[in-house]
């Protein structure tokens, strides 16, 4: 008979070990799934985790790691602040889209002006777009007590429709021969979020992600607001007594995560994606939820988790072209990761006791 005994304090060792255990378990069960799909499990896993880093064409894939990882880290950092405090923004995908639309909108409005001021204004536009979209659930929560989970999620679908409307209508390239999608920002020098070092994958989004990690780390460890976030999550009653203002906390957490998601969207649309198109968003906003949990809601952890998740995206693409592994298999793989993480987390908060249950 196995019994669970709550630990007085969450175990630090297991807190660090569970993500690793979860990754291992995902590799095992993911490999099993690949075998069921008729692919060699070992080759598949090596293709996903090894090839992008150390394979023959690693020089091409390594920059991709930064390109795919940056938006994930940027969004996940924002989400983690709220998640820590029990404020659930799960509509980052919508904020990402709105950031991209606002930012690209600013850029397209200035076309073809050639000035250094265009890109910074686009960044502001992107941040504002994500922020304002997140302020909708935030304001509704503080004013009316509306559930932020449902509102932020509903707004994803609204944003997707908005994106479709924009790329087919207002933002459509007037010289695009009637094809949907905006002008390509990569060909508009003042608006292009180019690699800072040619071919390195290091664009402004990567810089922003690193700044966000540092900002979140300092906030959580050194600042009063970070303390308020942690207390609210761990002991809401104690937080109230210690003078935490829940309204401000909701506005800050949702606002910040929206702002960062908006930035991620802008950097993507002005850089790697280049264009506002109907299906420009690829679900980073949802994958970032996995990244945030996998990183244990800790800034450094999120940085590592973002890298790992970017690896599965790139490795998944390689496995798709080389082994014919379906794209959906990678999605399942990423979902599994969150499952195992949540399951193994039991060991962080509880101690397993073997033996008979004694009668109290």
């Amino acid at each position, binding site marked *: 008979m196995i*019994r*669970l*005994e*709550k630990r007085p304090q969450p175990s630090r060792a297991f807190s660090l070990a569970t993500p690793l255990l979860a990754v291992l378990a995902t590799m095992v069960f993911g490999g099993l799934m690949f075998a069921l799909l008729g692919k060699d499990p070992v080759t598949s896993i090596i293709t996903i985790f090894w090839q992008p880093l150390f394979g023959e064409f690693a020089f091409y894939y390594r920059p991709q790691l930064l390109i795919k990882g940056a938006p994930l880290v940027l969004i996940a950092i924002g989400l983690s602040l709220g998640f820590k405090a029990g404020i*659930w923004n*799960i509509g980052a995908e919508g904020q990402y889209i709105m950031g991209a639309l606002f930012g690209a909108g600013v850029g397209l409005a200035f076309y073809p002006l050639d000035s250094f001021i265009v890109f910074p204004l686009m960044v502001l536009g992107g941040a504002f777009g994500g922020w304002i979209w997140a302020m909708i659930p935030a304001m*509704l929560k503080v004013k*009316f*007590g*509306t*559930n932020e*989970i*449902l*509102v932020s*999620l*509903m*707004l*994803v*679908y*609204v944003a997707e*429709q*908005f994106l*479709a*409307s924009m790329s*087919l*209508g207002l933002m459509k390239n007037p010289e695009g021969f009637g094809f949907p999608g905006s002008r390509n920002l990569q060909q508009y020098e003042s608006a292009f979020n180019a690699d800072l070092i040619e071919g390195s994958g290091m664009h402004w989004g990567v810089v922003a992600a690193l700044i966000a990690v540092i900002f979140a780390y300092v906030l959580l460890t050194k600042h009063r607001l970070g303390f308020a976030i942690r207390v609210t999550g761990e002991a809401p009653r104690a937080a109230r007594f210690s003078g935490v203002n829940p309204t401000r906390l909701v506005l800050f957490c949702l606002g910040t995560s929206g702002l960062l998601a908006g930035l991620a969207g802008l950097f993507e649309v002005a850089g790697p994606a280049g264009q506002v198109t109907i299906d420009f968003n690829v679900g980073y906003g*949802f994958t970032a*939820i*996995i990244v945030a*949990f996998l990183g244990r809601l800790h800034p450094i952890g999120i940085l590592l988790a973002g890298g790992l998740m970017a690896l599965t995206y790139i490795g998944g693409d390689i496995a798709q072209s080389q082994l014919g592994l*379906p*794209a*959906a*298999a*990678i*999605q*399942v*793989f*990423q*979902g*599994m990761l*969150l*499952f195992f993480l*949540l*399951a193994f*987390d*039991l060991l962080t*908060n*509880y101690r397993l006791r073997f033996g008979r249950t004694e009668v109290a």
Partner: protein
Amino acid sequence: MDLSAINPILFVAGFLVAATPLIFAAIGELVVEKSGVLNLGVEGMMITGAICGFAVAVETGSPLLGFAAAAAGGALLSLLFAFLTQIALANQVASGLALTLFGLGLSALLGQSYVGVKPPRLGDIDFGPLADIPVIGPIVFTHDVILYLGLALVAATWAVLKFTRAGLVLRAVGESHDAAHALGYHVKRIRTFAIMFGGACAGVGGAYISLIRVPQWTEGMTAGIGWIALALVVFASWKPGRLLLGAYLFGGITQLQLNLQGAGVAIPVEYLAMSPYLITIIVLVILSADKSAAPASLGRTFHASQ
């Protein structure tokens, strides 16, 4: 714009169909939440049910077997959630999100070879002369058996929760798991059954979309209906009767915006397509003032030795 192109009788009959997936998903989630568990994985279970039902219906040629498979698929997936929240004592919000993300991926994987396939049709029940009654006949008596099953399920859930011992125990577990435990009820077992019931219902709701409402398979075809179902439970203040009303309201709006798209109203298609989501938000805002009806233990983890 030509509003006369919208036939009111077909419109009403259509929104009864549009509301059915919501009714199934929401009544399942209502039971889950009544037991004190918040399962945010409805969308994931729905889409998994949609593909399980679709695949089995295509392979066997029997839509009813498809619906059975959808219920089984949804319940099976919900067991993962039950394991995470009841045994591994994980956070319910995170586990629900995990279920949705996983379900979306899994359904896409299972559904690869079913894109573009036409499923077998489930015929309407033959009510004989009843269907010939003017107005009422075509609206009420021209549907498939699953639609009526949904209505029966709502009535049965209402009756079970209100009048039976099992319903009372379920509500007790949801209101105060500690008290229910002290009385000797198996909180985790009861909750696991409730979660599985919710999964089965969500699965059937999903299959109703892929087999009857659309009917075909496309990735992510539930398009947020699972989330609207979650909102609907709040809207209904956890009462089956109001849930039915809410489902018809949303079904009506969905059907109306589709009809308006067809009638060529001067509003762009995208803005019409936004409307069900925006209206969900507005309804949530109006109703969020009153939370007194929520089960008191909703979303809290139960561990006996605490």
